[in-house]
């Protein structure tokens, strides 16, 4: 196989991101975990420090794989009160761009609409930064960062679901 055969196409990345979004919107969190490498990270930086390093700056979320799994365990528990009853979300993913090849890296814009009972819709707007790894022929997420555009969380409140 030549180099060209190994390259991941934008169509593949888009299919992958749409599938991931569908799993998260459906709260199929165990299936979502299967999209991650064994050393994956998931981060949401503080709104006023979007380019920072979580070892040196306070983030909203800076999970290693153990914490991601614990987050899923928590969210599946009815005692995760902030997400019980679970909110409804609808993710719109767009402007997907491949920004690196070895390893494959992509960025995409997102709008996540979040609905809870008797509450106005909350709109989480921003961009994703992904780093992928091909493991046994399968594309997996090695790094996943959701950067919010809001200047502060303010009326968005908590990020209690997986953004």
């Amino acid at each position, binding site marked *: 196989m030549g180099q060209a055969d190994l390259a991941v196409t934008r169509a593949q990345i888009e299919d992958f991101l749409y599938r991931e979004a569908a799993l998260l919107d459906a709260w199929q969190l165990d299936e979502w975990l299967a999209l991650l490498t064994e050393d994956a990270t998931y981060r949401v930086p503080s709104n006023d420090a979007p380019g920072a390093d979580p070892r040196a700056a306070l983030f909203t979320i800076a999970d290693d794989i153990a914490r991601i799994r614990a987050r899923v365990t928590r969210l599946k528990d009815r005692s995760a009160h902030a997400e019980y009853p679970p909110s409804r979300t609808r993710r719109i993913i767009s402007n997907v761009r491949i920004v690196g090849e070895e390893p494959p890296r992509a960025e995409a814009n997102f709008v996540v609409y979040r609905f809870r009972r008797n509450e106005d819709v909350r709109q989480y707007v921003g961009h994703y930064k992904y780093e992928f790894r091909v493991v046994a022929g399968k594309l997996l997420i090695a790094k996943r960062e959701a950067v919010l555009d809001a200047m502060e969380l303010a009326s968005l409140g908590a*990020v209690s679901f997986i953004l």
Partner: protein
Amino acid sequence: MRLVVNESLRFEVHRSALADPAVHELESRRIFERCWIYVGHESEVRAPGDFKTRSVAGRPVIFCRDSAGRVRVFLNTCRHRGTLVCREREGNAERYTCFYHGWTYDRDGALYAVPGQGAYPPGFDKNELALKEPPKVAAYRGFVFLNFDAGAVSLDEYLAGAREYIDLVAEQSPSGEMEVIRGTQEYDIKANWKLLVENSFDDYHLLSTHSTWLNYLKNAGVEMKRPAKGEMLPAHGVGKDLGNGHGVVDNVNFRGRPVARWIPIYGEAAKPEIERIRAELVRRLGEKRAARVADTNRNLIVFPNLVLNDGSSVTIRTFQPLAPDRMRVSAWALGPKEESATARAVRLDSFLTFYGPGGFATPDDIEALEAVQAGMAAWREVPWSVMSRGMAKQGEQLNTDELHLRAFWIQWDKLISR
């Protein structure tokens, strides 16, 4: 009408205190214009000209360092016709220029230039038109407060018993200097601000509200004292009234501390570093004081709206009432200035396990507060909340009792009812 009933074995708070716009208005005048209100930490403005803009007690302020290196607080409003003179979140300013008509102030607040000044009548004096400052600004161990009451007692006197707990924070740094770490968590809660006061040092809610967080610790191999049947976690903590409405829960540590008690969540690689920090602490403070600093967790309330959560991390949390049923929370991580990169990473990671809008516990607290606020809509039919835990007890009160909550409310009632 009294909003707080305090009798020998009965303590109740009237729910209108959490819902009524008239009470909210009264608080603005009698509490937020009378008490020392937290502005920021000295480390946030290091160099002359450094500034942060924020809202304190509903006022826009510029928190900054002047050309002489002094920390200053200016009301962020042009003396001309009122425009904000600084609209950026943070930065370093040589001057503050009002963009509307071009009035310009220097970094010491003095009015420096007025375009077309000649058109003003005689008697127009730039010296009388410097940026306004609150009547009082003072700091205790790096924590800067303002007071809109020129007749207020000194900050030291005001802080009363809270000083001891702020000292315990400062002593975690070899030089006594702590610093605010980059990254601000700013989020709204659709609840009355006093509900967050209660929540911040209410250990009664830990088991029922935070079971998923306790499970997380347990699954991560953290050894926890199991509570005896009928007891509440964490065992052997106490709740204290520190005077002037301040209060604290002072607990035996089971959840780790960056300074300096290792738990498995920190990872094996961080163990030597935490042990080194502990050794420095013991050398500097002696065994006994080091244990006081490093083996207890303290959640401190400085009346009315500053919280220092001094445990699995050191969190500065302050909140501004926006409406009877809404507040804006700002939270920062605080660490020793000299902290190594490894220890800093442990601190920030430890912060996020529990705290913040993406943590494993704070979102459930927010949910609890918003659920309380929703319940407040029935305050006319169900007017009283019960806050009498521990009242029949002599002597020491537990962290799961409500003595410290009552201390807050008694001071609140004193200020509101006069």
